[in-house]
């Protein structure tokens, strides 16, 4: 009998980021397969904790196997708890679960010290870590984008010191700590080749990281679209994401402005709809940007509705100005059968290769050209749609995960004491 503990830096009941969503989907799938699996998430900081927890409450249970710990907030530079007593608590909690397999999705809010001590306490357990972004390498929010705005291609003590304004020795220490921690895992997983290569270039030995894309359950097939539907969709573009600077929404707005400034109005009306961001939050972020007429803000959406919403568009645009890893929005677009127009770097270039259009990152003119090259072109849309392969389903993900991590499927879930 084998117990798997899936540990995430956040909990999707509270926050809906890619890493925690992937972790939770894995948990739900294994649970549905009658596996002995436990999910441990966390609030990401004191603000969230204060919202959901009582003053002395340490853990929220969403189910007999589904827990959310009270996160105290963690400096992502050190990746350690500020108070060792908080580390003690999480360490003891995770130890008490007596997992045979601990699969960490991220280590933020968990702490390098927790992982080291758990590893030392459970030398026979299998430790797995999925790398969801570049935090271990990059102290600037793990995005490998310099504070000056330029893309960063490799970390070094001196370059990072110049970027983050800390002494170079701090980066020697940080890298040592991170590599040591990653060295404690039996298996490292990456959802993209891009991320694997970055980690290998940085210092993780080649061959240590296996690439498995995140699992996403989806419809097996869709009804074929008529020519009229294709024509209509070829004029409809959409963005799904947040109003953070690195998501590149400003690039899209500038591109739309360039299109509108052209002398000839397109025969087919152009519409670009923004999901996940409302007009107010956009204006707060970019107060000087004028919003073109073709842009329509649709506000927040339910994650479970995302694929269905995407199906209503011809193209999904992902204009991020950082590398991205394996954004869930790309998987969802694949699940919706909707092609993408993506920045030509990192995880976006890799995961949209063959079925998407790519444009020079951060360049509104290039994005405008890419949009106009397919606008009102149902044939082009059809061709790109036909090239889309569906994302990895959770069943397939679980199979690849077990193979990569040399796991055997359990026959039956172990009953939890008191559950």
């Amino acid at each position, binding site marked *: 009998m084998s117990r798997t503990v899936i540990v995430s830096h956040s909990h999707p009941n509270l926050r809906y980021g890619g890493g925690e969503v992937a972790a939770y989907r894995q948990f739900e799938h294994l649970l549905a397969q009658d596996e002995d699996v436990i999910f441990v998430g966390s609030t990401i900081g004191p603000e969230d904790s204060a919202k959901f927890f009582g003053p002395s409450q340490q853990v929220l249970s969403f189910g007999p196997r589904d827990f959310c710990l009270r996160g105290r907030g963690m*400096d992502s530079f*050190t990746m*350690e708890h*500020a*108070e*060792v007593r908080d*580390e*003690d608590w999480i360490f003891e909690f995770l130890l008490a679960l007596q997992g045979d397999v601990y699969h960490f999705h991220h280590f933020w809010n968990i702490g390098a*010290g927790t992982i*080291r*001590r758990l590893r*030392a306490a459970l030398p026979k357990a299998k430790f797995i870590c999925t790398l969801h972004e570049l935090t271990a390498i990059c102290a600037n929010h793990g995005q490998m984008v310099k504070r000056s705005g330029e893309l960063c291609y490799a970390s070094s*003590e001196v370059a990072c010191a110049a970027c983050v304004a800390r*002494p*170079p*020795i*701090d980066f*020697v*220490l940080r890298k*040592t*700590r991170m590599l040591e921690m990653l060295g404690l895992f039996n298996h490292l997983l990456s959802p993209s080749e891009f991320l694997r290569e970055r980690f290998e270039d940085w210092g993780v030995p080649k061959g240590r990281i296996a690439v498995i894309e995140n699992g996403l359950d989806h419809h097996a097939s869709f009804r074929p679209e008529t020519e009229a539907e294709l024509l209509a969709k070829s004029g409809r573009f959409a963005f799904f994401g947040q109003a953070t600077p690195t998501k590149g929404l400003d690039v899209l707005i500038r591109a739309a402005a360039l299109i509108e400034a052209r002398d000839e109005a397109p025969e087919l009306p152009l519409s670009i709809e923004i999901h996940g961001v409302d007009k107010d939050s956009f204006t707060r972020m970019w107060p000087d940007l004028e919003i073109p007429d073709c842009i329509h803000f649709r506000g927040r959406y339910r994650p479970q509705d995302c694929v269905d919403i995407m199906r209503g568009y011809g193209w999904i645009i992902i204009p991020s100005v950082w590398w991205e890893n394996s954004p869930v929005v790309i998987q969802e677009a694949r699940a919706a059968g909707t092609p993408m127009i993506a920045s030509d770097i990192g995880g976006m270039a890799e995961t949209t290769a063959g079925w998407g259009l790519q444009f020079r990152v951060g360049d509104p003119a290039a994005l405008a050209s890419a949009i106009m090259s397919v606008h009102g072109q149902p044939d082009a849309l059809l061709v790109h749609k036909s090239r889309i392969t569906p994302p990895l389903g959770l069943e397939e993900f679980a199979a690849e995960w077990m193979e990569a991590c040399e796991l055997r499927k359990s026959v039956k879930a172990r009953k939890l004491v008191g559950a």
Partner: protein
Amino acid sequence: MQMNLDFCFMDDARIVAVAGWTTQPRPHLRLHVDDKVLTPIAVTRHVRRDLRSNEPMGLVALFDLSQLSGGSGFEEASIHLADGYDFTEIRHPRLIEDASHLVEVGVDEVFFALLRLIAQRRLVLSDERLGRDICARLRVAPSAARETEKHVLAIDRCQMTASGQGAVIGWFLPANASAEPLCALAIEDETIVPVDLLPGSMARADLSAYAPRYRFSGHDGYCGGWRFPSPPSGAARLLLMVPGEDFLPGVLVPIETVPAADLAQHVTLATLGIDDISDRDRLRRAMLPHMLSMPRPTETEDDKPGDGETLLILDHDLADGDLRDVLRRIGPHLPGRLSLQLLRPRLTGVLQNAINGAAREISAGLDLQEVSLNIARPEVMPDRVVFARSSVLFQFDLKPIFAREPVCARVTLLDPIGTVLATRTAQAERFARDLLPFALSMPAAQFFAQLGQVPECFLTEEARLRLLAEALVLQGAAELSRADIYRYFEGKSGPHCENFVDGRDWHAFDAHSRQLIEEASA
């Protein structure tokens, strides 16, 4: 009229002082030593109230016998004081005993004149008993007023470290010009030391409002430094002797004991205010010993391996939270328990947390023994002592630094050009001059015995330990190895990396101190 000779004594530098009085304004004094005739190198005059006169009939004349060739002593010599054609024989015992007599029974005016000569370093009297007697007499002496019709004296800072280095900064405006300078003595229970005072050395344009009453020059700031030969055991005072003040010893000021870094900060600032650049090092030099003697190996009782306990004396120059990583990485290399002396002024919550975290990961055990900027001798002697900065421990190979064997002292240093210039002397020179990163590991008993020989005159303990390591290297008493790394970054955290107003950190401050001592003793 012949000079009335009250006292006649010789100081440590073979200067003979004759003290007495005469009505002659310019007495024709000579000292006959056998067939040699000496004229005074200095004559000072003072008023004596016991003579019922306002004329400066009191006199102290100094004769320099050090220039006379032959013989280490003057026991056999015939010595006479001549005033015109009158001769007074000076018997040898007076040269030894009269200084004490002066301090004991001399009238105040001659006693104060003696103090001024000591303060001006014209007389050097290092006899401990004499020092005690002077201190005892001064203990009950009244202080002169800081502001009178004749002068105004201000003391902005008068501070001293626990080890006995001190500095005074202030300003002085006399009403009348005087040939005598402002001078000072630092006084503690049983010791007096002259203050190297630089009167009129610092621009003080802000004092111009005093101009009608006093002689304002615009450069009326003074500063001065001193160093007691051993750490003062109690309260100390400064005696500032004002020119023309014959009836009182001078202005007595309590000396505030402050942390060494605070004094260094104030001295650095004062140094920048000294107008004449050639005088700037004088203030610092006055606070330092005249020479640095290299520590020597000593007989120690116990160099045999014990239970493997290591005392780590750590200058944590990284972020406070990173102390955990530094300590826990040592864990696997420890032969026994680890005791920690942290060279920080205080234990912060983050440091405590880091130590607690490391303790959970070091199976051999970890004790925090001391948090102080100064090394403390442990009550129970551990096996070995290791000293290093955290940045060194993090980037050097830890295994040889913490190894139990060999038992001898071991110095590990980063010398980027060590393979090119590998002689022991060249390496030791670079080690001191370039402040090469190093770790010192040695048996604890030897460590403390030899460290005790290095004077406590630096801001950082590292400066003392560098001297110790250098001595061990030069004497061939340590196993020397080079850190096999090509990329090294210094830490920039902790008090030792804090900059003074001149942009130098504590290590650079100490390096300059050492340079000043070496220049003075060269």
